[in-house]
């Protein structure tokens, strides 16, 4: 069976790897063509209704280059990114700890569940305004307000994760006297990983939108501050330039950090059974 096949195998395999390269590239091409289509549509529309309030992609690109050349773009992107990162870390750590505790202790969960629902439903704007009034217009209040907005979401997701923990692993760890750090690192976190990933994903998207509001209301730098500035100047091209630049940064983070980390964390799952 194998002998007559060997002659055919090499070209067959080459064709196979070519087509697998094509299948790997297809989604990338689709995304590129799709985005290009959106740009063209935008360009046509801007041409059809020429207005200062509706700049075309070319104008936005010019503004982007100018802001990048002056260094302003990177300064404000950096300020916003720093706040997003700080609020994200605080929200994930605090939310995970609270969520796992609530998921593990039924009575505590019964008592605190109304609090969680209350905080889930407080509008982001209210938390931000109160934080600035109580703690002043400073960086800690800004980041804290963003984190407080995100924490209840993380709590709910991680509470689900804690409820799904398999007691068998905890018992095995107890019998073999795992230390507390080993338990967290090798027993707890790998089981919570899918829930952490879910909380992270929805977290980053939500957090950066709230950070813009925080910057608009009480900071003197960052993408949100710039957008507010250009809103007063009615400069739509600059507003779009900053928005698109930050979306691009978040996409790059998703592709270069989030997805590789996730692939690494779930490598044991993709092995054949």
């Amino acid at each position, binding site marked *: 069976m194998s002998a007559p096949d060997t002659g055919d195998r090499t070209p067959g395999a080459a064709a196979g790897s070519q087509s697998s390269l094509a299948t790997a590239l297809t989604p990338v091409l689709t995304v590129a063509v799709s985005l290009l289509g959106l740009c063209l549509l935008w360009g046509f529309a801007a041409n059809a209704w020429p207005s200062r309030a509706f700049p075309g992609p070319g104008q936005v690109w010019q503004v982007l280059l100018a802001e990048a050349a002056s260094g302003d773009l990177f300064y404000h992107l950096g300020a916003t990114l720093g706040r997003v990162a700080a609020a994200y870390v605080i929200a994930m750590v605090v939310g995970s700890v609270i969520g796992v505790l609530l998921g593990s202790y039924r009575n505590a969960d019964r008592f605190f569940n109304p609090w969680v629902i209350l905080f889930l439903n407080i509008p982001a704007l209210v938390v931000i305004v109160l934080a600035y009034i109580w703690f002043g217009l400073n960086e800690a209040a800004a980041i804290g307000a963003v984190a407080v907005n995100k924490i209840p979401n993380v709590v709910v997701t991680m509470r689900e994760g804690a409820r799904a923990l398999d007691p*068998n*692993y905890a*018992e*095995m760890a*107890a*019998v*073999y*006297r*795992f*230390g507390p750090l*080993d338990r967290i690192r*090798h*027993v707890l976190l*790998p089981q919570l990983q899918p829930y952490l990933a879910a909380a992270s994903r929805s977290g980053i998207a939500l957090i950066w939108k709230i950070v813009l509001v925080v910057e608009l209301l009480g900071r003197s730098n960052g993408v949100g501050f710039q957008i507010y500035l250009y809103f007063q100047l009615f400069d739509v091209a600059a507003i779009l330039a900053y928005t698109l630049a930050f979306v691009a940064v978040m996409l790059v983070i998703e592709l270069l950090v989030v997805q590789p980390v996730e692939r690494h964390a779930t490598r*044991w*799952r993709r*092995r*054949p*059974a």
Partner: protein
Amino acid sequence: MQPVGAAVPLRVDIAEKIFRSAQGVSITALRDLSFEVRQGEFACLLGPSGCGKTTTLRILLGLDKDFSGSFQLPEGGSNRIAAVFQEPILLPWRTVEQNVRLALPKSLRTKNLDGLFDTLGLAGMRSLYPAELSLGLARRAALARAFATEPAVLFLDEPFASLDERTAERLRHLLLTVWSARPTTALMVTHNLREALMLSDRIIVLAQRPAHVLGMFDVRLPRHYRNTQVMSDLLRSFHQKFPGVA
């Protein structure tokens, strides 16, 4: 390694273990369960399905503290306990070797495990993840983890259940090989009489729920004498002593 120092046996005196369900139904799983396992002895708890064997082991492992009575674990040596559960319970996100090493105390983490992996036929599988193992191999990994810790006492809960008979037989021989090289006090739970007769020094026969000791059956023969002929003699004398059991 044989535990050194005073030869304290495993001593069990459980007065009662009751499960109470939320609906108010209570099941008495154990009542007046008392027995001893001498140091270095391999003993089997033999009892019908559902009689309370796993419940007993969970109490001895410290996983269930809601019972009346007391027990004493053997002392000396590493003072550690090890268990092979009814399921292998390997961490799916760690390799076979990582699973074994994680169970070791910090001082033994880097010790040489080549001999143990070789004996259990796991030499080529150390870097595999549990999902890549058959149930038989996963059970061997669970045995490796238990013996690697050099325990003062080893508990096994039907470690060969739900395997085909040939694989189970291979694993029983492997268990004996590893245990003779690293003798330790061992208590194995099973409802398989042949398995108990083949592996143990002594069988502790349990009654139907609530579990208590019906009697003891000593198997004084060295294990390599227990061939087919001897086994059927053992079976016969067991049935004479315990008619109606197993």
